């Protein structure tokens, strides 16, 4: 579904990601773990197209998208939930979903389906997104991503900084998505337990390099912990 081959990414003159290769197979769930500052977000921004790659290639469904704009990658089935519960703060919850649904044949139905996943949003449709709680905004962000009918969902620390009562709800929703066919997931996550629960394959990133990788599942928890301890 998505391959990033030997990519080099950075800001200004400094490189942050040094020759990383990551693959997300069709229908597969892949977790990327690593400490703060390891370069996880930078890697995802490159995957989405918000940051240019200095070298290396990115393909979606086997087609080279290395230089294409983010919205064109979205058209090819990629959806991205950035770190930090981002939303269009001055727009209402409903407008946040509509702006993505606009122009899609099944737009209204897609909004309803996305809302079914997070019933709590139903009562908040008229409220400005900037006034929602962090957890609600994250639910909105995931719902917004789903309205694009993605075949690849990219999530950057979806439960970071969210009140504990909502974390379980979001984790359940993500697990539900990973198990529904036709959707690949690339998940950046600090909670090793949850990440390996969800993922079929994992990568550990440190200082912009892949330092460990392997298959998901509870059996890998100690491997990942020791890889991250280095």
């Amino acid at each position, binding site marked *: 579904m998505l391959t990033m081959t030997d990519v080099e990414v950075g800001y200004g003159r400094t490189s942050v990601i040094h020759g990383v290769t990551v693959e997300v197979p069709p229908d597969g769930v892949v977790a990327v773990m690593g400490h703060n500052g390891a370069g996880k977000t930078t890697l995802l921004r490159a995957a*989405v*197209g*918000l940051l240019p790659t200095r070298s290396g290639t990115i393909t979606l469904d086997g087609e080279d998208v290395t230089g294409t*704009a*983010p*919205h064109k990658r*979205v*058209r090819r089935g990629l*959806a*991205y939930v*950035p770190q*930090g*519960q*981002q*939303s*269009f*703060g*001055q*727009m209402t919850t409903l*407008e946040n979903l*509509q*702006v*993505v649904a*606009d*122009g899609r044949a099944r737009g209204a139905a897609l909004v309803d389906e996305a809302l079914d996943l997070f019933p709590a949003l139903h009562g908040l449709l008229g409220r400005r*997104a*900037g*006034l929602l709680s962090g957890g609600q*905004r994250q639910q909105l962000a995931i719902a*917004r991503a789903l309205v*694009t009918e993605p075949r690849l969902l990219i999530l950057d620390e979806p439960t970071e900084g969210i009140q504990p009562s909502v974390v379980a709800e979001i984790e359940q929703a993500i697990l539900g998505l990973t198990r529904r066919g036709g959707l690949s997931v690339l998940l950046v996550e600090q909670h090793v337990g949850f990440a390996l629960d969800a993922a079929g394959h994992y990568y550990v990133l440190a200082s912009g390099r892949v330092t460990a990788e392997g298959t998901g599942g509870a059996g890998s928890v100690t491997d990942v912990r020791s890889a991250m301890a280095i």
Partner: protein
Amino acid sequence: MEIIVTQLFNGLSGGSILLLAALGLALTFGQMGVINMAHGEFIMAGAYTAYVTQNVLGSAGLSLFVSLPIAFVVGGLLGVVLEATLLRRMYHRPLDTLLVTWGVSLVLQQLARDVFGTAGVDVPAPSWLSGPVELLGFSFPRTRLFILALAVAAFVALALALRFTPLGRRIRATVQNRPLAETAGISTRATDRLTFFIGSGLAGVAGVALTLMGSISPNLGTSYIVDAFLVVVVGGVGQVRGAVIAAFVLGIVQSFLEYSTTASIAKVLVFALIVAFLQTRPQGIFAVRTRSLA
């Protein structure tokens, strides 16, 4: 009492002209961080569009309505060309855009001089706009009432379009969070271009309205661009409704000051008031409110 009503009306009328000139700027400056000095020349182009349309059609009554949409498109196309050739490389670099568009505005003025001559030309108002409307013992010039109605209509149409149409949602999303809009599947480039088309098109509409106020000449735009920017800054950058309040308040204040002093002293006083206002409220009447980065 009579003086108050008259000055109030003059103020509203002046404010409506300010609003027409500033509405498009509020969109392109406020929302895209582009200082477009050529906006005044887009107004001028709209005025000459009315002039040409009237010469082609021959009838003043019809040509006013025909020239409004044509001027919108003419202004819009000029804006899109400017955006595509120069400005798109300079978003959120106000000083660069200021210099570049100032150059463009000089070129456009010279172009107008070459085509239409230096002297002013008249675009006669249709007969149904001549003379005043008498109401409660006061008389209001019909042309000014028309401009007031046009300004209000333009604002309402813009506000409704921003609020309720898919394009309006895309524009607001792009303004609020450009990277998020891109990754939500919105082509922010296409949205920028359309925003510029609409903003510049509104300048064209303003130009048509100005033909009702007197003769037009190639430097028509220079007399409005500074006032229009003042409206945008006082209203609060990026706030269309702020521009409305600012335009009418400035129009009314200026009208009363002109009555009690002279036109040039009034201008100086208005400037001083604006400086004082921006000292206490640099963000303008309305500031963009956000709880977080979101």
